[in-house]
């Protein structure tokens, strides 16, 4: 009964001074709304990033040329060309247990032309494992076979966007296109995949790996190899087998002298997850600072309130309120104020996040609207705790008032 009466009383006191209560709560409202919307936007951005990486396919490991620190990026990422990785390495990996498929990659850029239309595209030299490794398929025609790789066949599979640009609605199969003036026969068109790992997969063409090495680029090496592992729990053992296989092939006795590095998508997801999580938390913490400012506003107004109600406090003490009763009354009052501010802030924050979702989706990203119950719970708790912490000093001052002096206060 006592708690109920106290909460009722504090609500009444807040409603008596509506505009003052609202202005006081504004700091908390803004703070909580900022925390909620930033947490939501952070979660959505994180989801988008991870989805991009996940779209590359699950249970993948990548072999990159050049040594690297486990945590740092491999040298190839800085644009340094390292020529140690060969297609034969990829062929050797295919025979290892737990490896479902392997694909060699070598990319280049050149003009691709059909009749009088010509445009610059990325071309990807890949091996026949590409379809399995990337979990994709052709929309029409077929992908190239192993014998076409070995025979340096001049065949090409188009990305769906390239097909549209060059052929429109016409059937491109068996037509001939030129890549950097070399004539290729179109044998297939890939299904639409959209943006994966921030690269539009539909705006490139695929040629046999050896064809791209010998005929287009005149090199012997690969950009990287990807291998698909059968099960997640086998990734670790597969990685160590891949390492020893390539060391054996490259004649490396000391692992420190490795001329390659291995990454798994799980690892990349972990790393990306950790980074985005940290970023999200940092932003939320910055937003939370405004909550502290809001708390100081609460404290200020509570001191005013204690002053205004000095006689009331004196009376309550005279008729039997204990110190803790007065302390409790004012703490409940400040906590009620911050809680109400918090609830309004949560609704505002959710509305902001929702508006952002609509806005970003308008620009074509698959941006999900994410508001976690945890962020709502944390914000609510924080609002109450702020009310209690910043209400403590004024409430304690009220509780220590001398009843006789307070009753005489004018």
């Amino acid at each position: 009964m006592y708690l109920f009466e106290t909460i009722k009383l504090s609500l009444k006191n807040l409603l008596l001074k509506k505009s003052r209560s609202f202005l006081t709560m504004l700091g908390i409202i803004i703070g909580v709304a900022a925390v909620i919307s930033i947490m939501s936007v952070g979660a959505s951005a994180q989801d988008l990033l991870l989805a991009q990486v996940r779209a590359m396919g699950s249970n993948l490991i990548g072999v990159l040329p050049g040594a690297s620190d486990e945590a740092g990026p491999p040298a190839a990422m800085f644009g340094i060309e390292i020529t140690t990785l060969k297609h034969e390495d990829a062929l050797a990996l295919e025979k290892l247990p737990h490896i479902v498929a392997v694909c060699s990659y070598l990319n280049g850029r050149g003009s691709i032309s059909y009749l009088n239309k010509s445009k610059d595209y990325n071309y990807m030299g890949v091996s026949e494992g590409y379809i399995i490794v990337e979990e994709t398929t052709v929309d029409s025609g077929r992908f190239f076979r192993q014998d076409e790789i070995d025979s340096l066949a001049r065949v090409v599979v188009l990305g769906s966007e390239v097909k549209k640009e060059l052929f429109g609605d016409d059937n491109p199969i068996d037509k001939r296109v030129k890549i950097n003036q070399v004539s290729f026969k179109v044998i297939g068109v890939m299904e639409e995949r959209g943006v994966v790992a921030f690269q539009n997969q539909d705006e490139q063409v695929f040629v046999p790996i050896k064809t791209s090495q010998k005929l287009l680029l005149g090199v012997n090496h690969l950009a990287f190899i990807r291998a698909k592992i059968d099960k997640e729990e086998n990734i670790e053992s597969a990685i160590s087998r891949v390492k020893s296989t390539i060391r054996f092939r490259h004649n490396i006795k000391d692992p420190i002298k490795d001329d390659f590095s291995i990454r798994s998508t799980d690892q990349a997801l972990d790393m990306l997850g950790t980074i985005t999580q940290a970023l999200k938390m940092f932003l939320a913490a910055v937003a939370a600072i405004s909550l502290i400012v809001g708390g100081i506003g609460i404290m200020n107004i509570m001191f005013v309130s204690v002053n205004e109600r000095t006689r009331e406090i004196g009376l309550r003490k005279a008729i039997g309120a204990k110190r803790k009763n007065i302390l409790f009354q004012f703490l409940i009052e400040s906590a009620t104020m911050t809680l109400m501010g918090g609830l309004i802030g949560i609704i505002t924050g959710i509305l902001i996040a929702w508006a952002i979702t609509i806005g970003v989706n308008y620009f074509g990203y698959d941006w999900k609207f994410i508001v976690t119950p945890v962020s709502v719970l944390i914000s609510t708790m924080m609002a109450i705790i702020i009310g209690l912490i910043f209400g403590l000093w004024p409430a304690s001052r009220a509780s220590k008032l001398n009843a006789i002096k307070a009753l005489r206060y004018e």
Partner: protein
Amino acid sequence: MLIKIDNITKDYIDDGLVTPALRGVSFEIDKGEFLAVMGSSGSGKSTLMHIIGFLDKLTSGKYIFDDQDASNFDDDQLAEIRNQKIGFIFQSYNLLARTSVLDNVLLPTIYTPNLNKKKTEKKALDLLNKVGLSERIGHNPNQLSGGEQQRVAIVRALINKPRLILADEPTGNLDSKSGQEVMEILQDLNEDGHTILMVTHEKYVAECARRIMVLKDGKIISDEKVGNQHLAKNGLKK
């Protein structure tokens, strides 16, 4: 015997300056008495009332209330005694603004543990009816006259069935008619067996009590029974 005051003193210390307010006061109050304490301002009558009402602590001497030694109580116990055994009536009523008459009357009970809410409310309504305010229970204090406000304050003082009613200049802010009504109520309460201690500096108000004590400079200069108690219903004579 309800109260025994034995040679109590009270010094106020302000900036190291000691100001004695009571300099050795002794008396007793029996159950059912109606005592008026008189004196000019600075005589110590307010200090005495605060000490008897457990709002202030004495400097030396002994104060026995209801067979208990008051010096043994801590702050929480003092609050409990004020809540359950003392009923305060103030000169300026001290009702909570923007709070209904009924809620004002019930205010002390929110600090009283284990009360039956329904019974307490019924009691409040009965008491308000007795002082003629049953039509006013939903009103706020600013809608009431001074006399009505003081009657609400009297009911508030009675709600927890106190052993002692302390009235500090209860008619001080009232016109003579309202003052008369308030004194009538206090006399009725005394008839019903309530013990009342009233502080006043008006002789004609004090004469409504059964016993008058006069303080001067922190000491009792006279303490006499009123031979012929003046009945307030016959009008207050000035």
